[in-house]
């Protein structure tokens, strides 16, 4: 089976950036003329290039059209659930970085259930469990959390440290349905500059994670780059290369793409390469045109004003009412967050806004009983 690591090694980041920069309006026009779903990697380069800027409205219309055709006028809503901010990594851009003098917290069983109760009361049925990277929040901790949460949610996703294949398979049996693992950057130099120590400093282990997930049979893999660490156009292109790889090799697996932007955080300023809202929209359009079926996620890191306009341009899922600190929903709403969120509306307000725009907010699109777990109703009836 082909590994993405080998694919990645065949491409030079700086050369890719140069190739994207050299694309012309004719290249963009040609890419937009392709039949749906038949774009190649050079077409993606054209759509991500500066030459595509004058085509942005046309790209957005095509992107909207393709999205409505595949997903309808719907928006899946989910919430992050931060389980722990303990972390052994030193990363320049993250509030949880090991050198930051912040209070570390890892939720107990009771605290996890308290968070779950608040999220359920908001209507959420899908949650994204988030931790830092330490041995303490490894497979056993996650397995326990999944078992605790399984009766309360249909969608259990994680965004945690990369794990070995057998541990993913074991978590899959505990009810894990999706794993998001952002590469942060595909630029080896920028990766090294920003991941100073800890397990995360090993770029190859991280690059191989989606392949391990695919082999472990995890149903959905989320990819993304942290835009702002290096040249965003090249990072987006490599994310597309990774997406194409997953779609081809792990063809049973669903895919999702996120567009996190570097945000201010506790612990110092680092140089941030430009990545504007306009750039974010260009990237989202390019991904939709590359892959009509990939889920695209719009973060609460973005502002309310931006989200209210941008959601129609290819996005299929949004987080809402997010807290990015462990215990943030039930017990510690004011404590330190991983990054600042910029859309402070409640989930109900976001849902009402979507309805006012002719979109259906979707809280639930799967049921754990289909995976062989006792569903919420069964649990409620038995208790």
């Amino acid at each position, binding site marked *: 089976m*082909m590994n993405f690591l080998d694919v990645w090694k065949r491409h030079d980041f700086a050369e890719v950036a140069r190739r994207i920069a050299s694309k012309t309006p004719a290249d963009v026009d*040609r*890419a*937009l*003329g*392709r*039949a*749906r*779903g*038949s774009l*190649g990697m*050079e077409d993606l380069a054209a759509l991500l290039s500066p030459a595509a800027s004058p085509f*942005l*409205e*046309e*790209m*957005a*219309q*095509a992107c*909207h*059209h*393709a999205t409505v055709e595949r997903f309808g006028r719907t928006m899946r809503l989910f919430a992050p659930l931060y389980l722990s901010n303990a972390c052994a990594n030193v990363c320049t851009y993250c509030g949880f970085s090991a050198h930051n003098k912040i209070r570390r917290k890892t939720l107990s069983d009771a605290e996890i259930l308290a968070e779950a109760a608040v999220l359920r009361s908001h209507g959420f049925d899908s949650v994204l469990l988030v931790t830092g990277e330490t041995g303490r929040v490894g497979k056993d901790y996650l397995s326990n959390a999944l078992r605790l949460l399984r009766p309360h949610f249909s969608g259990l996703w994680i965004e945690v440290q990369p794990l070995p294949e057998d541990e993913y398979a074991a978590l899959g049996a505990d009810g894990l349905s999706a794993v998001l693992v952002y590469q942060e950057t595909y630029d080896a130099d920028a990766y090294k500059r920003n991941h100073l120590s800890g397990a995360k400093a090993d770029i190859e282990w991280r690059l191989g994670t989606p392949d391990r997930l695919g082999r472990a049979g995890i149903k959905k893999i989320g990819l993304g780059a942290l835009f702002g660490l290096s040249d965003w156009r090249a990072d987006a292109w490599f994310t597309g290369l990774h997406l194409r790889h997953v*779609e*081809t*090799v792990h*063809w049973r697996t669903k895919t999702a793409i996120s567009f996190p932007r570097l945000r201010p955080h506790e612990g110092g300023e680092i140089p941030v390469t*430009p*990545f*504007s*809202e*306009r*750039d974010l*929209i260009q990237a989202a359009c390019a991904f939709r*045109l590359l892959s009509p079926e990939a889920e695209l996620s719009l973060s609460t890191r973005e502002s309310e*004003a*931006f989200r209210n*306009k941008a959601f*129609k*341009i290819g996005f299929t899922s949004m987080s809402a009412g997010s807290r990015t600190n462990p215990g943030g929903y039930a017990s510690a709403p004011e404590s330190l967050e991983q990054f600042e969120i910029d859309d402070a509306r409640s989930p109900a307000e976001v849902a009402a806004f979507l309805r006012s725009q002719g979109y259906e907010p979707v809280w639930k699109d799967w049921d754990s009983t289909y995976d062989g777990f006792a569903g919420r109703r069964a649990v409620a009836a038995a208790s």
Partner: protein
Amino acid sequence: MSANPLIIAGVEFSSRLFLGTGKFSSGEAMRLSLEASGTQLVTVALGRVRTGGESDDILSHLDTTRYRLLPNTSGTRTAKEAVLAAELAREALGTHWLKLEIHPDPKYLMPDPVETLLATELLVKRGFVVLPYVHADPVLCKRLEEAGAAAVMPLGAPIGSNLGLESRAFLEIIIAQSGVPVVVDAGLGAPSHAAAALEMGADAVLVNTAIAAADDPVLMARAFRLGVEAGLLARISGLTGMPLRHGAIPASATSPLTSFLGETG
């Protein structure tokens, strides 16, 4: 963009046209047609090969230094029969390459997907380079790839029908997601069909009836050679695609989606 060489099981092919050797009016007509086609890989029906080591009609007309032989299990109806036939072919022809073709139905000659997957698993374990002939079924092709098939050979239309790429929509999916070469096999009736398959992204095509049954098979072999080359050239030179633009923006006024963004970053 350039065409990567076609490599199947580590062997590089410069010709994207594979030929069947049945239905020719004479051994000489076959020999001249193969030559005109530029092919490097030819299928040989096992039924035509003598397994006792005697000299053989069809093989006497095949220059095996020039053409790689691809024994074909056509005529077998189950995985079990195909495995036996494959072992006999390996012995008789001295090649472990195999076109796996299992059709239990003698009328339409439709390939049996269940037996074909099973036989592929068994034959790969026995060291064969397996090229299974199948319906244009994208999931089956992925399953065969996972079972170790060296390439997949989905049909364009019923075998011998000359209908062309009737399975186009499914072939497109197979080509888009395949990790092994895709050879469109069966049903191609004209060089334009072969060209269209290559334009679409197929790695190669296999043709037999359209050449062998032509009034002038040698000329038709050359025509297919040119069709395949034209299709490949068109693909690598960048087809501009469908007449409708990607967006297919409805004629009704659509309000601008990006006007809220600034003109620059």
